[in-house]
């Protein structure tokens, strides 16, 4: 299973056939800080990923002007 991570952009190969939350745990990623896109469709951490799926893990946290 190919996993594309963003910011910085990179790709890793990981075993599929398991819940997405396990993939996120293995990568040390908080599921509330990313969109998970499987074969172009949005999925939740409770969904499963297959061995041949293509996963994009897209961060949602953005920096911004320091207004404090």
């Amino acid at each position, binding site marked *: 299973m190919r996993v594309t991570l*963003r*910011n910085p*952009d990179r790709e890793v190969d990981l075993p599929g056939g398991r819940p997405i939350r396990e993939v996120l745990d293995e990568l040390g990623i*908080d599921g*509330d*800080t*990313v*969109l998970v*896109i499987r074969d172009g*469709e*949005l*999925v*939740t*951490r*409770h969904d499963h990923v297959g061995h041949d799926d293509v996963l994009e893990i*897209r*961060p*949602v*946290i*953005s*920096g*911004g*002007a*320091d*207004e*404090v």
Partner: protein
Amino acid sequence: MRCKRCRGPAVVEVRRHNAAFCKRCFPEVVTEQVRKAIRRFEMFDRGDRVLVAVSGGKDSLALWDILLDLGYDVTGLYLGLGIGEYSDRSHDIAEAFARARGAELRVVDLAEAYGFDIPTAGRRGSRSTCAVCGLSKRYVFNAAALDGNFDVIATGHNLDDEAATLLGNILRWNTEYIARQTPLLPARDGFVKKVKPLHRLSELETAAYAFLRGIEYVVEECPLVAGNTQLRYKDAMNAIEATSPGTKAQFFLGYLDRGMPLFAQNDDDVVLQPCGSCGHPTTGRFCAFCRARAQILGRRLDGPIPDDDREVVRASSDEVMPAEIYGRTA
């Protein structure tokens, strides 16, 4: 997981609501949260002209999309910050969205209009490039809204932004900033009304909305944002949220309900006067934007620096170098 509304296959989980939604229902849920925010704070009416600050990111484009769908009279404003390919791509994306929606996008280029860009501001000794960026955005948006006779400026600040900002202001007990951290800043004396219609929505929700609506947005991070204080506060809030879902909402929305009245200040005591350089309202002799711009461009606010006047420049450095941006001089 099943959609809470229609029991279809869920694609977005909102843990703080202990709920999940399908790709059809979720955009409707998000839109309803925006409608609720607009209604509760009386942000604007159908007849108002709304200027949306557009960066090309997920929040501003999601906001613009929602307001267009709700039938408001809304124009986008993009500010070119001069951050190389990042700004070029952001601009292209904002233009593409406007074309696709048949909406009007106005563009201001910071370097063309004011003689400097954000990378230049960072190189000229600023301790906080992000602070100068924020200052420039607020100044330019207000100026553009006044020039274009807009009734209100809408920004894409979301729940994560507001919770992180509130955390930072409380850690430093910036009580004046805390008092002004509301989803609506009323118009006064040359300041156009400003609103934050996305303040009830997390970044995950706005990102999911943009994705499900097929909105292309800038995913990559601004190259100048590394070490940004705001990001550190967001990381802290997200660490708490991971084990206690709903903390960010309880913190910020709870502040609006119960904390804001405790910090309310009477702005009637604040006397504003026209900036001696640009005429925009300020509490001092010159506004913070003009002072920052003068420091970046190496100019006196009342003209170029004569060779034999360096001592005067040194003595007046506190005047032209805004301490709240660059810190106290030695």
